[in-house]
């Protein structure tokens, strides 16, 4: 029963991801005084790509066609680990936050390898930039995660969410810093403004798009979908870890329904924040990104230190 529920939750997760992307697009368009496409446009895009014949560049090896499947599979598996609507699902135990970071790294690795497989300058450029940015982002992400893990005494996502939920509304300085750090990492890792611009195909500024430039058809669909899921994953992490209220702690229909409604509201709000920041900020030069990420790291470290100095000391004394 609980395995079935976990399965359904994962399905809901991957089904809803394009909707979130559509919603962000809509909010962004509205903020820029533009007419927006329907929120269901990402689904139409995916369907369209699904029907198209993919193009395989000549120099490609088996890595190129295999990478989208690996990327998608590892992203879906990450989605299965992260509690969306309910906690205490059995899938939450097969992997923890660190494994989640590992999954992100796995899918990134294959995307980068696929980018280099073609032997064009774009692929290599995107690959190099992506690896640089992610290797700077990963420590701050893990620091934020560790702050949480040390407070909750667990790296298991479900248990951590339970802990935050049960302690009630307490203002912890460490969480505020960790939240800031994690949000900045989210922007960097999902390739949004100001680190990368998902809408541009201008050669000199591309990061994520440069790697996947050669993809088309169903492969592109898988990669697009995976990156939408990844964006939603970060959103759900932020929403459910820092604001877990409303998440279903038992499996009764009422609480599950409430869980769905609550996570939808939380994600919608986060999407507005993201769209707002994308409208307000301009894209950074690539070598400014390190300063941005150092700041994210600093926030996470501050979170960790304030946990150790302000919060943990009280507990252990």
């Amino acid at each position, binding site marked *: 029963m609980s395995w079935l529920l976990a399965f359904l939750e994962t399905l809901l997760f991957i089904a809803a991801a394009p909707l979130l992307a559509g919603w962000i697009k809509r909010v962004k368009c509205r903020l820029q005084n533009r007419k927006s496409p329907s929120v269901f446009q990402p689904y139409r895009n995916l369907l369209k790509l699904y029907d198209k014949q993919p193009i395989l560049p000549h*120099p490609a090896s088996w890595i190129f066609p295999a990478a989208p499947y690996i990327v998608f599979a590892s992203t879906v598996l990450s989605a299965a680990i992260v509690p969306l609507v309910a906690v205490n699902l059995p899938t939450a135990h097969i992997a923890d936050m660190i494994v989640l970071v*590992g999954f992100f790294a796995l899918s990134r690795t294959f995307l980068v390898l696929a980018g280099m497989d073609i*032997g064009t300058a774009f692929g290599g*450029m995107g690959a190099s930039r992506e690896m640089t940015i992610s290797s700077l982002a990963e420590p701050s992400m893990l620091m934020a995660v560790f702050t949480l893990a040390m407070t909750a*005494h667990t790296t298991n996502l479900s248990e951590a969410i339970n802990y935050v939920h049960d302690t009630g509304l307490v203002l912890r300085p460490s969480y505020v810093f960790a939240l800031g750090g994690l949000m900045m990492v989210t922007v960097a890792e999902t390739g949004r403004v100001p680190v990368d611009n998902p809408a541009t195909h201008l050669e000199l500024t591309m990061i994520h798009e440069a790697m996947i430039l050669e993809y088309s058809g169903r492969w592109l669909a*898988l990669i697009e979908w995976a990156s939408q899921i990844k964006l939603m994953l970060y959103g759900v992490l932020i929403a459910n870890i820092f604001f877990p209220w409303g998440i279903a702690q038992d499996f009764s229909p009422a609480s599950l329904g409430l869980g769905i409604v609550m996570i939808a509201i939380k994600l919608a709000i986060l999407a507005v924040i993201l769209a707002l920041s994308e409208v307000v900020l301009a894209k950074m030069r690539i070598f400014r990104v390190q300063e941005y990420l150092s700041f994210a790291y600093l926030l996470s470290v501050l979170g960790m230190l304030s946990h150790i100095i302000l919060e*943990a000391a009280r507990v252990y004394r």
Partner: protein
Amino acid sequence: MSLFFAYVSVLFALMSALTALTASKQKEVANLSRSALQHWPALQFKAENLFCESGYAVRHRNFLFILLGFSGLFAVLAGTTTLLSGSITTDILPLGLPWLNWHIRIDPLSGFFLCVLGLPLMAVSLYGSGYVREYEHGKHSMAALGLFTGLFVAGMEMVLLADDAFIFMIAWELMSVASYFLVVFQHHHSANRHAGFLYLLMAEIGAIAIILAFGVVAGFGNGLTFTAMRSAELSATWASIAFILGLIGFGMKAGLMPLHAWLPEAHPVAPPHISALMSGVMLKIAVYGFIRFSFDLLNQFLWQWGVLVLILGCTTAVLGILYALQQTNLKRLLAYSSVENIGIIFTALGLSLIFFSSGMSELGTLGLIAALLHCLNHALFKSLLFMVAGIIWHKIHDHNLENLGGLIHRMPKTAVFFLVGVLSISALPPFNGFVSEWLIFQTALQAGSLDSGVLRSLIPSASAVLALTSALAATCFVKFYGVAFLGLPRTHHAAHANEIDHQGMVTGPAFLSACCLLFGIFPTPLINAMGNLTQQLTGFQLTNISSLGWLWLTPVSQNTAAYAPLYVLAGSMAVGGLCYHFLYRRTGLNPRKAEPWDCGFGGLNAHMQYTSGAFSMPIRRIFQPVFDIKESLEVQHEGPASTRVKSIRYQFQAPDPVWSKLYDPITLAVNRLARFAGIIQTGNIRTYLGYSFFTLIFLLWVIS
């Protein structure tokens, strides 16, 4: 039983060494067999066939490596039987000094390291016989290669079996000196001789530090046997002195920064199967020595030691990988990455020491297990990577990353093995490297239970450094794979490489790749098997490790953290398979082949790809202060008013700053000192006679 296996293993290694001496002695061997077997005509006939001239070299070579393979097999057998039974077997051999015979002991710790030694050795024995064909018609003696390989392996095995300082040092020196000869095997290159000298020098300085460390402990324990040393009662100061000396000695061999300088010089120049053993196994023997010395012999833990080891480990890890990122030579890159991994192992050991000193022995045990597991994992994937680097050399005769490219098309099998190695070393699930790094993170996250606030904040910072390291490692190896195996071939040689045809050279790496995946998916039985080891060394076992069953890894408790690699793998395979089914099989749309996008200009060529230097440029720029970068850019203009660029030449060098910061000043100081001491050396016999006379008078005065 296990000790018997271990003896057999050492004997096989020595036999291999001795047999190697007959490499070019086909006639003598044939004559010898003829005279020895003259009463058994049937056997004599077979021997005639066996030792006949044609194919003697091949049979001889294969025989050598078969002996080595058996040595590895018996090492693994000895190791597993000891680990599983948890028994300690001791023995005294009638060799050595009159008052100090050789004490031999095999316990789970040495058993574990025998496994660490045996698995790569088995793969090397499969691989090596194919590789050394390259040297067959060269000017180098196969006999020397075989002899020193055998001695090297035997030395490492004896280090693991030693139970007194005397035989330990003999075995240690055997290992060092034999490997020196292997490093300078191709001695006609001056770089190799230089690297060999540096290696020997640092190995001997390290050995002196180890002797001193043993001396301090033995002085308090009344004896050179390890049993006597264990009972030594040391004050904290003396224990710290011994610990520091041990850390210097073993750290020098293991390659801790800043004592790593020999490693990136020596590992690249040795033959690849030797590099695999040196990087994969010998560094682990140094780690074994450190663990034996500090966890077993010293028998006390101070938190300052833990902090020292932790900081050293973290620095080594992050600097090692940053330097590795800037290398373009395959084997130098791998050597620096070994430095990084040693850093990770020492970080885990530092955590373990801190927890033990704070009385939290279960967490200390967890740290120790993480370190040991990483030793095993690194031995597997680093040997694998060195072997593949050897295959590349074998086929292309080039170690420069910038000259490779597109090898995946022409070496499909090799590319798969290498990919497994890359994913393992980048610590990606579900491979084995991830498991050990995950365990280190889990250990670090328990820092909240420490009393000292300083330690509580130091450990998470260390783990953040570790996170940076593993992310950079992924960058480094993705670059390695992407530049060497993917894309377009950058040179003619790379374009005409072909797949390896020797069976052994395929099965060796294949065996290690399988181990990498297997230990990544089933880590829990492995860790359970280490229960006896930790029980004996520290008195603790991880009781909760399989509280959810043997497919799950739950280091602390099931609510703290759990990881089920098999479920993860099965889940992702299921998702990937379903996608493939629905997207490929159901649509039936076959991909169309086309040229990649060239912005409409046409004529993409291999030189337009990102190079290795370009790939790591952002990292170079971001972490500028830790490098000693020398860059130069020459642009030649032509045309009216020099507006057209004719050619651009960019060069960069990333020498290891440890040379300019530490070693060069030391060299300078030593030279100055030598010159100063040289003043008294006049070269005049009368002066020397005068020195002797005054010394004699001084000594007589002292005596009276």
